[in-house]
């Protein structure tokens, strides 16, 4: 009676009970046939094992982003709970950026313009800045005019209080070193070695913004501000769009003042801050967005652009050049800023340079390995690129 391949295989893995093991080993000593077969099976198992273990090289030893993952799952579960049968929630990678783009631009445009929304705006502006990959230049006068109308819209006020919810998960915390920041935010924090001056690290909590779309209310608001010609896709009605913003790590280098201590964004003086010799590097995992499937993203995006003061035709022309599914588009006031595509950190990034009260400022944005980086501070193009190149 010879030994089966299965038993020989189990012998290798120590998966035979002691009785069978004894008798199999005893037989192998006497039987050349079985013993040769055993050698072949062993050799083959070793080949398979080493080849499959070779895949391990791709299993990067970066910290596992469990909190960020839990957040994504949470958004999906929440959306499912509240909207069980009506909508299939999408979470596909290719739609994420589109929804960050489309919904964040709308929410930001609404929130910055609205006095009691200012406290929220601080956070939204961060997201707004963080995500830009492509810029569109807009006429600041047209935007200002539009925002003025939005500010005086009573229906916008109602829309925000009834339909938009913001949940912060935790509080803003100052931490002592980048390691602690990495641990708290669930990402590997990188450090610009060339940055000078005192260093401060702040971890901003994750947040989730949920908007229940009530198309009638939105159209009412649009006609109140003289934009009744904007038409949003009808299938958007009743949809829930949620933006999930992972924790962000903000590193501040130089004389940054008390901005980090201020818990209330409306308390800090932005123009004073912009004149300080302070460099800020923000790092966060790309935000995720959940929204119903089957909505005409281009149409939503074009409406956003028009809300920011573009004509319908400008919006359409620009929209055609953008893949809304992967890009976040950021409006940059014409004349005041200039934007260019640059190579940074081995990927394509966007560099925006501007002048503020006679001082040069830059803002550099790029996305690498699902992490969004924004580096901003006083200086010119070279300063920005040199600092970014010193990241480790």
């Amino acid at each position, binding site marked *: 009676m010879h030994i089966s*391949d*299965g038993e*020989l295989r189990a012998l290798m893995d120590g998966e035979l009970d002691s009785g069978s093991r004894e008798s199999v080993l005893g037989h192998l000593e006497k039987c050349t046939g079985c013993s040769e077969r055993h050698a072949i099976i062993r050799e*083959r198992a070793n*080949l398979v*094992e080493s080849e*499959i273990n070779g895949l391990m090289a791709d299993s990067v030893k970066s910290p*596992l982003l469990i909190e960020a993952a839990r957040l994504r*799952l949470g958004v999906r579960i929440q959306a*499912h709970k509240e909207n069980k049968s009506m909508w299939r929630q999408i979470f596909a990678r290719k739609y994420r950026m589109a929804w960050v783009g489309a919904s964040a631009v709308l929410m930001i445009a609404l929130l910055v313009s609205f006095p009691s929304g200012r406290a929220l705006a601080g956070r939204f502006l961060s997201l707004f800045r963080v995500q830009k990959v492509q810029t569109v230049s807009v006429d600041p006068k047209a935007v200002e005019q539009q925002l003025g109308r939005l500010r005086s819209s009573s229906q916008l006020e109602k829309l925000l209080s009834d339909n938009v919810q913001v949940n912060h998960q935790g509080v803003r915390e100052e931490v002592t070193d980048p390691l602690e920041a990495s641990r708290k935010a669930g990402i590997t924090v990188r450090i610009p070695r060339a940055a000078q001056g005192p260093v401060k690290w702040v971890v901003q909590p994750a947040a989730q913004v949920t908007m229940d779309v009530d198309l009638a209310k939105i159209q009412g608001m649009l006609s109140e501000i003289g934009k009744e010609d904007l038409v949003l896709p009808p299938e958007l009605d009743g949809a829930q769009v949620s933006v999930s913003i992972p924790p962000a790590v903000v590193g501040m280098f130089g004389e940054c003042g008390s901005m980090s201590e201020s818990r209330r964004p409306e308390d800090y003086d932005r123009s004073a801050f912009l004149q300080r010799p302070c460099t800020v590097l923000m790092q966060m995992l790309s935000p995720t967005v959940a929204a119903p499937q089957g909505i005409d993203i281009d149409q939503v995006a074009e409406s956003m652009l028009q809300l920011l003061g573009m004509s319908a035709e400008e919006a359409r022309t620009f929209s055609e050049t953008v893949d809304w599914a992967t890009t976040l588009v950021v409006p940059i006031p014409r004349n005041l800023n200039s934007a260019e595509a640059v190579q940074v950190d081995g990927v394509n990034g966007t560099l925006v340079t501007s002048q503020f009260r006679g001082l040069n400022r830059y803002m550099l944005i790029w996305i690498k390995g699902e992490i969004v980086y924004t580096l901003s501070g006083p200086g010119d193009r070279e300063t920005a690129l040199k600092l970014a190149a010193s990241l480790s």
Partner: protein
Amino acid sequence: MQSQSELREWIDPDAQFEEVFRAQWSRLCSLLTRLTGSRAEAEDLALETFWRLYQKRDQVLRASNLAGWLYRVGTNLGLNALRAKKRRSLHEQAASRHLLGLASAESVPAAMERLEERELVRAVLARLSERSAQMLMLRSEGLSYAEIASALDLRPVSVGTLLARAETEFEKHYRAVKSK
């Protein structure tokens, strides 16, 4: 205390789901990263796996072989993704051949040779029968025969035989791909 929290988990599937998520997320992610070669894709697939678990938590969480369920569903999704990628890359190869004006199929072996060893192993896994590929991944993940049997719904005594068969299948495809 221990038994109290166990009791709570037993009563509350959401709490138990939370526990399982925290205990298994990293391991499932690293298995799927090995399988797909992309961390981002692995996270998406792991998320999809947990999403399915969440939807079935009432049934699945009561069962004893929870990790097994996760690995079975997870590797299944991973292998599907791998096969889809293989199909895509074949199209891409065909397209690039066309662009280069190389009408013959002779450039395929050459292209295969240039494939990185790891991609080659993934291509082999994608060609195996689903159960074989799953067995090899679970074994390499260090699961015992009893755990493999439970995950793939097999009799424990047949695991050795099926594993040996899966390895033979792997070697056959591996040599075939290599020799091209």
